[in-house]
């Protein structure tokens, strides 16, 4: 049909063909499919809520994080329940539970996003080197990545925390290092697949420099799966932040609200006050679910096999 319009000459419609193949069209149709997918909408809603809470934490939270209230009424056997000033009651150190949860979102987002960004950046550099240049560079880089992959991420986190001290930065780096191999392999694979395509041969035939071919042709076409992976990795990162602080490898500053440490504090009161563990656990689970739902929907929307 499109060819007929060419034969007829001018004024071929410029509206994109709904079945258009190719990435420009791919992003368009991905967006359309995303909007029609209930899981994507649910995921996006959770992510949006999480972002809003994290960004506007000082406006939402009733108090200051990490500040134990005087005369809190916390006894070794019980914590005060909900009251007008404290909708969810207090937690074991005597701080407002809702405030801790709200500021905990902020901490999770910060560490999750920064570590994923670091992991993505590191993985992208290695992936571009390996997938774009190929040859011996590819071999060397991928062996390094294999070595990284063989180290358990928790062990890596312990080592990084031991070297850098228990600071948020060491948590970020620990999580990021564990993510680098994932992104590097994904981007390399994606670029290798693109490298054999006709348009790459065509730009080579036009004498475009290799660097330009890699950076402005191969890379943009290979980013789809990487973006999906970044969304999914954010969910993992948020869980890992909690896990690391649960193990005592996180931020050692007690005034920082953190969902993982809230779980640790709630542990001793699990039998008497289970809600202290349920709330942060619920937050971790829902946030991770939100990112996963959205990431999976994005993956489906971008998957050429799923397109009709």
């Amino acid at each position, binding site marked *: 049909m*499109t*060819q007929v319009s060419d034969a007829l000459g*001018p004024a071929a419609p*410029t509206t994109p063909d709904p079945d258009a*193949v190719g990435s420009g069209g791919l992003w368009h149709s991905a967006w359309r499919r995303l909007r029609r997918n209930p899981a994507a909408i649910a995921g996006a809603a959770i992510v949006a809520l999480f972002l809003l809470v994290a960004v506007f934490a000082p406006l939402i939270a009733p108090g200051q994080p990490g500040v134990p209230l005087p005369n809190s009424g916390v006894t070794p056997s019980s914590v005060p329940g909900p009251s007008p000033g404290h909708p969810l009651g207090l937690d074991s150190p005597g701080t407002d539970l809702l405030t801790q949860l709200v500021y905990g979102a902020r901490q999770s987002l910060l560490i999750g996003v920064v570590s994923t960004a670091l992991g993505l950046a590191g993985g992208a550099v290695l992936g571009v080197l390996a997938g774009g240049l190929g040859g011996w560079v590819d071999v060397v880089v991928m062996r390094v990545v294999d070595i990284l992959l063989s180290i358990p991420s928790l062990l890596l986190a312990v080592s990084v925390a031991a070297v850098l001290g228990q600071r948020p930065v060491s948590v970020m780096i620990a999580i990021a290092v564990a993510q680098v191999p994932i992104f590097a392999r994904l981007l390399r694979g994606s670029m290798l697949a693109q490298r054999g395509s006709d*348009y790459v041969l065509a730009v080579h035939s036009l004498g475009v420099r290799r660097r330009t071919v890699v950076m402005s042709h191969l890379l943009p076409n290979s980013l789809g799966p990487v973006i999906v992976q970044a969304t999914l990795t954010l969910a993992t990162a948020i869980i890992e932040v909690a896990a690391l602080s649960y193990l005592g490898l996180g931020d050692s500053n007690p005034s920082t609200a953190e969902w993982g440490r809230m779980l640790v504090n709630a542990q001793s009161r699990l039998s008497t006050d289970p809600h202290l563990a349920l709330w942060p656990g619920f937050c971790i689970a829902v946030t991770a679910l939100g990112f996963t739902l959205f990431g999976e929907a994005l993956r489906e929307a971008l998957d050429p096999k799923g397109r009709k």
Partner: protein
Amino acid sequence: MALLEVRDLSISFPGGSGRGSALSKAVDGVSFDVEAGQVAGLVGESGSGKSVTSLAVMGLLPHTARVSGSASFDGRDLLAVPERELEGVRGREVAMVFQDPMTSLNPVVTVGTQITEVLRRHTGASRRAARDEAGELLARVGIPAPVRRLREYPHQLSGGMRQRAMIAIALACSPKLLIADEPTTALDVTIQAQVLELMGDLVRERGTAMLLITHDLGVVAGLCDTVTVMYSGRVVERADRHELFARPRHRYTSGLLASVPRLDAPRGQRLQPIPGTPRDVIGWDAGCAFAPRCSAADDACRGTELPLVSDGARDRHLLRCAHPVPDQHDQHDQHDQHDQHDQQERSA
């Protein structure tokens, strides 16, 4: 001296079927010329090595390919120059148009950027100047509303328009040689004619030489000055267009021509297919590759390597055949008159 002189080009790839170290030959001792400002056709069926030949000239074969021979372009052997120097030649002096316009444009980059990229790379033009130039190029290849099209992505263009855009990109830096590898195969028949006509016009007005690779004898008949026929990785016949169509001497060429419907054929005459299938290129031996399918084949064809020699009186007609089709004087006189008539009509 011709603009492009390919001599004894042989290409093989590692990894034949079966034995690990075996090389599979794709092209064997191919030689041909492309004269400046002329259109040379390279004809053959799938697997005859014509595309591989063009990729070798451009230096675009994978590193695993073993290439020997020479491809002298403007006095420089393209097979010998380093990759960095070759990058300066590609796009500026030799450019290529590929078969499938649907996949040969980068889907995430606008058409305009893909043209200006080449202009800026080779001419050092400013962003603005390159943009203007790109608009003019699109207009020249017959794309309506060119300035708007510059901002569009390939998927917003139809197949015919994409191939026009590809041609615009290839001709952006006014190369001396354009290699077109089956430029119309992926297009609708009506668009094919338009695109071929456009390419013919463009190379003529710019004095660009063109190497047209095709399996379609109709395309050759319409555009080419000289024709090289390949079979199974070797050149089997080479002649000027009129000579080849009027007096095909190699059995393969004549078989091809007999298998194409003609308007001037007597009514009721059946098309003559070539029996058999093209041979597997792996496992070459001496002798004619076409022999197993040839009605005139005998021991002379199978035993010894046949050279590409000129056909007696006409030294521009080369062929590699032990038993060429006899020169049918009656028929070719008729054809000559026909051709002259054709030409008169065209010039009129």
